[in-house]
């Protein structure tokens, strides 16, 4: 009978590799586990049709866009200004919809 070879993931929590490679079913753990890694399913910015562009002149830095962004792609920089991480922003437009001063415009990617 083949000995089960999977490793106990609780034993050395800090030493766990980011990505584990399995050759066959005997090496697999009992269930598949994923750890969050930035961009693990690719650069989701590729999905975007409309791009949010922040108007610095009218932005009051209230942070509502930052709170509402479902993907955490609005980032507050050292000066307290908000920027969009275009590598991962999917272009959903929630930030533009919620912005109280209408400082975010959704621009068609082809027109940028």
């Amino acid at each position, binding site marked *: *009978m083949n000995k*089960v070879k*999977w490793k*106990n*993931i*609780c*034993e050395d*929590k800090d030493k766990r590799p980011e990505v584990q490679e*399995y050759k*066959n*079913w005997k090496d*697999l*753990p*009992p*269930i*598949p*586990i*994923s*750890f*969050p890694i930035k961009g693990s399913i690719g650069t989701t910015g590729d999905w975007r049709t409309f791009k949010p562009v922040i108007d610095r002149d009218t932005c009051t830095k209230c942070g509502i866009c930052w709170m509402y962004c479902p993907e955490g792609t609005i980032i507050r920089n050292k000066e307290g200004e908000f920027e969009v991480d275009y590598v991962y922003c999917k272009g959903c437009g929630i930030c533009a919809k919620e912005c109280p001063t209408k400082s975010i415009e959704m621009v068609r990617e082809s027109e940028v």
Partner: protein
Amino acid sequence: MVEAKEDFTQERETKIIKGNVAAAYGAKSARVQVISAYPITPQTTVVEKLSEFADNGEMPGTQYLKFESEHSVMAATIGASTAGTRTFTATSGQGLFYMYEMVHWAAGARLPIVTTIASRGPAPPWNIWADFTDIISCRDTGWMISFASSHQEIYDDILMSYKISEDHEILLPKFVAYGGFTLSHTSKPVTLEDQDAVDDFLPPLPDERGWPHIFLDPERPMMHGNLIMPSGFYNEFRLKIHYAHTIAKQKIKDVTTEFEKKFGRSYGNGLIEEYKMKDAEVAILNYGELAMQMEEAVDDLRNEGYKVGCVKLRYLRPFPVEDIIHIANKVKVLGVADRATAFGSPTGGPVSSEVKAVLYGSGASTKILPIVMGLGGREVGLEQQKNQLKVLTKLNETGEFPKDMIEGTFWDGLLELD
């Protein structure tokens, strides 16, 4: 079951209790940390008794959770188990069917949840009495399934279940099924073991790191149960559940032996129990409480000179393939009595289908008689079981099957009113 000898020195207590109360004491002795509950006849008194324990402080540190449905009960049990706790719940019939989606999830997530089922007949027509069709509908979910045939066995099997389920090479949820009302609401003496002895027998409760394959830690978030594409390892993870069942057979035998050494009560080899099978020419296989009564029937017929024996099936999953082939080779005729239905099945009831499947290609030339009886709590008396053994003996001696067979199955005890 073989009774304990007197020389066991632990402090134990014998109480006359109902089967459901024995189940509640089993969960209490196993020090379960989370109990989620929704009542359904005939299971209700299990969770009622546990709520009493939780309320009067007899189970310190145990969370007792009430829900609006069985689906939520199993979902909560899964959540609690995923967080790394020993969990328990109980249900019956329609409640189990409502729970069904989550039942698959528990096995797929490899969570060692133990659930007792006070089996009842599926509706309609509405029925609340003993019938194992409910639990057998969970045959292919990946859960281990055992049958308890006495009040004591309900208590004992819950303890053994945690030890088997929580084994790091197995990690499967487990059902312990017993007949609704026949065991759940009748009272018998049950020996409740000393807490220190039970603690010593069971694996330690999981610590904050939870089970070896999953743990919830806000410092290091993880995700499980996510999508696997067809090209991913889905087939392989399914195979691993099956593989865990195959290695569980040996583990069950080991744990049963260990239990016997520790507490003095034995349950055959763990998977099956043979009774007077040494020189038996015909035998009958039962599961649940009727397997216990069948031992009486065998004794009576042995006194009349019949060479008969009986076998108690303890586990439906994993199925004791090797043991069934072994007993089939010992006898010329083997009856398989199901208190459950498998509509449209080519080979009788659900367990007789399994037995026939196992024997195909095994070289055994044993004649199998599938028997379906006692559905929805219909009484199967001692005389009826003795008659079943006589029918099997006649089949052995003359090759004659009973006259009123329906599609190869003997439906025993049908009403015929004048």
